[in-house]
């Protein structure tokens, strides 16, 4: 199972990288909130707001399908627009006690490598702390910092840097 998620993650990274090379956007924006449900019966399709439903991992309408949280330069505060994503994963993990999540913290290339390992860990801890506060058990969460060692793109500009300052939410068990 683990290798499947590894491939999924690789795909996510590959898509992010492709986006990094082609788009002109200065900042990766999270998808807008999906419109509120209208009460129409969608017969079996997952409710995108039901974060306990594992089908939403592959549902682009659901925040559960978003697994990268981006940060400001030299900061480890989770920006308001990413709190929904964190909450969605916290809700899922809280309702699935066997789920295990690794929060992989990353930094951009500026600054020294070992300091950036510390910064990546701080970002991972920030997400971990938010998830814990929302009911995920500490035993379900681990933080690994890669510092600046695993960039998703390698251009020295603001756009690429902003894509590299991130925490990736990786499920090692769902």
């Amino acid at each position: 199972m683990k290798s499947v998620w590894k491939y999924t993650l690789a795909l996510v990274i590959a898509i992010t990288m492709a986006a990094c090379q082609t788009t002109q956007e200065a900042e990766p924006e999270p998808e807008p909130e999906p419109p509120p449900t209208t009460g129409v019966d969608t017969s079996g399709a997952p409710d995108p707001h039901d974060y306990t439903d594992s089908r939403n991992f592959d549902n682009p309408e659901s925040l559960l399908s978003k697994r990268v949280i981006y940060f400001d330069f030299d900061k480890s505060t989770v920006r308001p627009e990413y709190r929904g994503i964190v909450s969605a994963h916290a809700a899922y993990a809280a309702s699935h006690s066997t789920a295990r999540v690794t929060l992989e913290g990353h930094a951009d290339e500026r600054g020294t490598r070992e300091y950036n390992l510390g910064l990546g860990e701080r970002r991972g801890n920030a997400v971990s702390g938010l998830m814990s506060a929302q009911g995920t058990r500490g035993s379900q969460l681990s933080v690994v910092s890669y510092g600046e060692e695993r960039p998703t793109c390698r251009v020295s500009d603001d756009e690429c840097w902003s894509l590299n300052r991130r925490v990736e939410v990786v499920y090692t068990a769902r």
Partner: protein
Amino acid sequence: MKVTDNVRKLIFIFISILAFQAAEAQLEIEIISGNPSALPIAIVPFQWLEAGPGPSTSVDEIVSGDLYRSGLFKPMAVEDMAEKPVEEEGIRFGTWRLLKVDYIVIGKVRSPTDGQGHELVYQLFDVHTQELLLSRVTTVGPGDLRFGAHRVADAIYEKLTGVPGAFSTRIAYITATGLGNNQRYELVVADADGFGPQSIVGSPEPLLSPAWSPDGRKLAYVSFEQGNSAIYMQDVSTGARELISSGKGINGAPSFSPDGKRMALTLSRSGNPEINIRDMATGRTQQITQHWSIDTEPVWSPDGRHVYFTSDRGGRPQIYRVGPSGGTPERVTLEGDYNARASVSPDGRKIAVAQGRGNEYRIAVWDIETERFTVLTPGKLDESPSFAPNGSMILYATREGSRGVLSAVSADGNVRQRLILSEGDVREPAWSPVIR
């Protein structure tokens, strides 16, 4: 668990295959800014007295190259030499004075009486006073002719500058090639002139922070091969290695104490990165900093009395120092927004740092006594300074376009040179101690 085990096995196999393969890429060295007051010296071609043809790069070429790169010497081109004496009697000092040479070196290479290895016999003269300044026989083992040539350059350098040479030392650095799933990291050891690079570890996962043991036999480094940072210590010549630290959180920034008995390292098992000191004999580890900030990149003063480290306890990263048994850290760098990853000069008086201003990072040297910074490099992303063991130069990593290259700058900032790897990214240089 099974999958994880298989992945580990695969990584292990991969590492085994890569280890000890000579890296294909060669370092190429070029001076990018010179020193107008360099001393003119003639290294006359050494006579080859051994059986068989001489090496493709002759001893005198290696000596000339070393002295040239130091920035303090301007070796004469061989084609400009009117005569090529081998013995003292053959030197016509008047001719060399006309050629505006201050010093002349003559020599020969012969087999020792037991036939094993090489004997480099050479003499250094002051052209103006005709005085014999140095007359020496350097004996090296088979396969160590280049090392012998570097020893000759060391002796000439020391005689004429008063500072021991550092040409017969080595450098370690990390290379990264490929992207995404094809990424590959290697820890490479090469001669100080970039010659003979040898990969001593290779991995698909990140490698970083190489640090030499004081005897120059071992390298400690950080590897992500198990999925998280872990510190290993490896014998450079045998490849035997030992896992030093792989606890929860960060295991990073190893640095040997000057006597080699202790290691400073960064561990975040307490929840955030702190400086720890490990006793290498017992493995006992003591935490010597205690702060919610990032404390990392420890490095020892040459007398072993202080551990310098990077901390952002004051808001932004600055260099602090503390005794190896702990205590209240004292801030060292007092200027600038971002000063990190200190390298202490061999005399303990200066620290080189990566200094950030906005998006630009340069190598700067802080004089501990006068409390002043001297910026040595032009930027934009210069980092990982490493003092030569004689303090004459600082090796560092920089970027050209999107790739990383190594450069060296003289401690006074007057001479800069570039060591280019022909492929990929090269970073985190660590200059070895003098190997005796």
